[in-house]
């Protein structure tokens, strides 16, 4: 059975390691925060100027001057730091953020990502996405394997305007966990529970690499 959004978030949470500084994009990536094991010490970065995003505030705690990059009201954890946008993107560009998790409309088999613009539709802008994908050491994409119309989002080449080239390392979809290979291609690492390799092949337009038995994801 294909994963729902929470399933994708839970699976990505397994990629998180103790001591990581993490930037979570809007959408499914934001949900990942809820499933990071309590015993791991990690710090969430918000590119509008905060290290140490906490839970959402209570009504009494709401502070218009404290929001995340998705413009949601938030709180700070103990040990948080506030800074300006230049410092924030210095941090990102300088490779200090260990893990970036973001959504995508398309990923190509050489790791290009498209997630900011659809020709013919109103362009809202790339925000910090281009800086994040051009800078992060470790980028995991969270997305549906196929579009609503059933087209694969894992392609040989992106058809949409791209956000960055050659940058995605891992992809977690509703169907699979895949790793982008240096030489190109999506190496199939895990299947969603009950999903067959053939179903994944069917849904993948880019080059899919299957090496031997592919285990099922373990999601609690």
């Amino acid at each position, binding site marked *: 059975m294909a994963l729902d959004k929470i399933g994708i978030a839970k699976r990505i949470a397994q990629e998180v390691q103790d001591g990581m500084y993490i930037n979570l994009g809007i959408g499914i990536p934001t949900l990942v925060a809820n499933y990071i094991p309590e015993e791991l010490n990690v710090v969430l970065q918000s590119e509008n100027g905060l290290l140490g995003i906490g839970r959402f505030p209570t009504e009494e705690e709401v502070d218009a001057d404290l929001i995340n990059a998705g413009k949601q009201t938030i709180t700070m954890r103990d040990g948080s730091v506030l800074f300006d946008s230049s410092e924030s993107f210095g941090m990102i560009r300088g490779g200090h953020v260990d893990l970036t998790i973001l959504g995508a409309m398309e990923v190509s088999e050489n790791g290009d990502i498209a997630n900011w613009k659809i020709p013919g539709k109103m362009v*809202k802008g790339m925000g910090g996405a281009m*800086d994040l994908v051009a800078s992060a050491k470790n980028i995991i994409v969270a997305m549906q394997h196929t579009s609503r119309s059933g087209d694969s989002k894992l392609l040989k080449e992106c058809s949409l305007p791209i956000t960055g*080239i050659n940058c995605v390392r891992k992809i977690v979809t509703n169907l699979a966990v895949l790793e982008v290979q240096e030489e190109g291609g999506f190496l199939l690492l895990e299947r969603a529970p009950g999903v067959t390799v053939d179903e994944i092949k069917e849904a993948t337009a880019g080059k899919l690499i299957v090496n031997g038995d592919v285990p099922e994801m373990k999601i609690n």
Partner: protein
Amino acid sequence: MINKVVKNADEAVKDIPSGAVLMLGGFGLCGIPENSISALLKTGVKNLTCISNNAGVDDFGIGLMLKTHQVKKMISSYVGENAEFERQLLSGELEVDLIPQGTLAERVRAGGAGIPAFYTPAGYGTEVAEGKETREFDGKMYLLESWLRADFSLVKAWKGDTAGNLIFKGTARNFNPMMAAAGKITIAEVEELVPAGELDPNEIHTPGIYVQRIFKGVDYEKRIEQRTVTS
């Protein structure tokens, strides 16, 4: 200390001419110069180029200046949900220059710091790179980006002193410090204005040297875009 205090927003913005290039601090609606924007609505200057990470919403922030057709061009990273913005863009009334957020922050920082150009990896291989010089350093490709400076920078701080020193609050800091430094004339509005000497010199975010005018703002609405709470 040099005294930078002006009476109010009207006084502070009165000489901003039509056609000026402005920088406006803020991320979303957080940390935006509400008072200076209101005052600009009254002066009615036109053909402004506004450098700001976002363009406000329909009835708040820079959105208000769009409604009055005072903005000719926006230089932003994300223009969000704003119906009037979209209408003006599609009709050709408004120009938009979209820039990756980190590149925008760094270009503004460069403007204040006298760095005319620098290399960044953001946007390499994308349409943002079109027409730009590229170059490899240590096996990675970068784009050459240039500084951004403004005729007037409008920033909003939490506390300020009469010498123009500023302290921001929470994530309302965002683009404000860099924009303060990149404006020929920087106008700071603050919630609390104290005499020089009352702020701890070690806790100031923006040195007063960057600020030409400062005033105590009034009636802050501080609108929240996404009010998310836990029960």
